[in-house]
């Protein structure tokens, strides 16, 4: 079999000079490949590990196995047509990506967003956060060895997928947020479905906690593993639950509120020890807090339009096309040529389930963006992985990869 021979690396160990320690070059430690096809690297992450026995000495992440050229593709598309691309970037947080991109466009053209749309955006992004944390919890537990949690998490996830399907017609890649508001108003089945979820879900979180939080096996595998001090977390640029696990109170929803997050009451859970277990507790608590926000947003959902009335940037309602010449012209212009934002550059940030998701947008006044860049939390957290993994056993590495909650689509784009 030619495949077998290919898999044996024929290179010279001296080529790795600078990446691994001197001891590996002398043959005292071994260099081991992990991934890109590995069940617990959460996608196509490849790690080059230097091992002293079973202890990780160095760990060098190799990314790019899922590089999709999304940012470059966006330069060739009109602003509104790129929203579908953002869904597929961090595929566990499609609504959050939509939101970051739409907020950037809205900021550069100073577009108003009606309050109803803002509240619905908050509601749906929080449901997406729960959705993402459910996948994280299921796979993280599966990696560490708790199979049944995965099955429970995906059972609840299906209910959320149904809600997304109700609003947008798609289970995962919703493309529901548009510059100036939403694609359409939520249908009438939406509210009962969300209320049903709100009443159903808290007891399920209790179930997960009963399975894991006091489970001695879980404690053994997570407590004191993957320690990250507060100073290191800041220095490495960690955000989101990874940063808050080290006890630093920084949540963009609280610190720099966007999309009317300042109207909602919620707590930001903080860790004390900065280990895998604390970050687990934080994400579980975040699901509860997200549910609180969803409840508040649904109870106080204002009536009114679901998207801006600025016809230069937002398409007119379909019903007007038959009666109004002006609406027809606007519609035609928007779908053929696209809109032209003023020249300039903006940076907006949102709190994705993984941390700070930033969108940096440069416009040269044409219907297509000159440059779009995403500051994605997975990429930043991957650069913190060597620091986190150093000195732990190779069996703990699986838990450490899980705890920073990387999505390779987010890191590679």
């Amino acid at each position, binding site marked *: *079999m*030619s*495949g*077998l021979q*290919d*898999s044996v690396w024929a290179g010279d160990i001296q080529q790795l000079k600078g990446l691994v320690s001197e001891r590996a070059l002398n043959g005292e430690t071994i260099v081991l490949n992990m991934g*890109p*096809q*590995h*069940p617990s690297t959460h*996608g*196509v992450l490849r790690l080059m590990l230097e091992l002293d026995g079973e202890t990780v000495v160095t760990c060098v992440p190799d990314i*790019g*196995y*899922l*590089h*999709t*050229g*999304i940012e*470059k*593709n966006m330069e060739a598309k009109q602003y509104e047509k790129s929203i*579908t*691309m953002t869904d*597929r970037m961090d*595929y*566990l947080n499609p609504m959050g990506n939509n939101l970051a991109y739409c907020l950037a466009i809205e900021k550069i053209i100073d577009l108003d967003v009606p309050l109803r749309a803002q509240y619905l955006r908050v509601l749906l992004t929080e449901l997406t956060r729960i959705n993402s944390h459910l*996948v994280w919890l*299921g*796979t993280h537990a599966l990696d560490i060895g708790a199979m049944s949690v*995965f*099955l*429970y998490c*995906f*059972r609840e*996830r*299906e209910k959320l*997928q149904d809600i997304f399907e109700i609003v947008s017609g798609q*289970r*995962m*890649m919703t493309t529901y947020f548009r510059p100036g508001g939403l694609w359409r108003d939520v249908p009438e089945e939406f509210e009962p479905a969300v209320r049903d979820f709100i009443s159903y879900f808290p007891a399920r979180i209790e179930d997960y906690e009963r399975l894991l939080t006091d489970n001695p096996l879980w404690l053994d595998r997570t407590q004191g593993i993957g320690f990250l001090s507060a100073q290191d977390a800041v220095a490495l640029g960690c955000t989101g639950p990874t940063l808050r696990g080290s006890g630093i109170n920084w949540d963009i929803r609280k610190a720099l509120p966007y999309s009317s997050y300042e109207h909602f009451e919620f707590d930001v859970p903080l860790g004390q020890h900065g280990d895998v277990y604390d970050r687990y507790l934080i994400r579980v608590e975040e699901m509860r807090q997200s549910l609180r926000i969803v409840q508040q947003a649904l109870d106080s959902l204002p009536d009114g339009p679901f998207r801006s009335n600025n016809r230069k940037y937002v398409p007119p309602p379909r019903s007007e096309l038959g009666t109004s010449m002006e609406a027809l012209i606007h519609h035609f212009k928007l779908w053929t040529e696209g809109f032209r934002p003023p020249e300039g550059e903006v940076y907006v940030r949102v709190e994705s389930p993984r941390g700070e998701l930033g969108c940096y947008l440069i416009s040269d006044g044409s219907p297509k963006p000159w440059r779009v860049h995403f500051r994605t939390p997975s990429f930043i957290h991957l650069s913190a992985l060597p620091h986190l993994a150093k000195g732990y056993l190779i069996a703990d590495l699986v838990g450490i990869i899980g705890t920073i909650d990387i999505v*390779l*689509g987010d890191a*590679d784009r």
Partner: protein
Amino acid sequence: MGVTSKLGDLGIVTVRLEDAVNWARTRAMWPMLFGLACCAIEMMSTQASVYDLSRFGMELMRPSPRQSDLMIVAGRVSRKMAPVLRQLYDQMPDPKWVLSMGDCASCGGVYNNYAIVQGVDEIVPVDVYVAGCPPRPEQLIHGIITLHERVKQERITDWA
């Protein structure tokens, strides 16, 4: 399966060997745990509680290509990933099948650019294509059943 009971109530059935072999292959076709991108999440949904792929004899997802029969290419294949994917395919023992899940794996999808292989059939032979971005779990199950129907038609060429 074409079972014919020729021997009355002796509890013995006769069947063509091909049918029996193909039936066995479809009832325990182990897919490889090989997720690339968004479609992998839907593949996990298909495997998990609600859709329960183990109903179709796919109880186990094997992370090792040496233990798997079916490669579900779930997601976009970048040019950097392509040689890895081919190597994994080569490492799978015969008989082996490939299911291309989603638009990106089937034809490049929305990413007609420098980074993405325009269809995984440029690298490995594909048996069944499943459309969708990402396909619903029902669509994936339909693709798998289509593959099963195909496998049942296969002829044994090497009787040694």
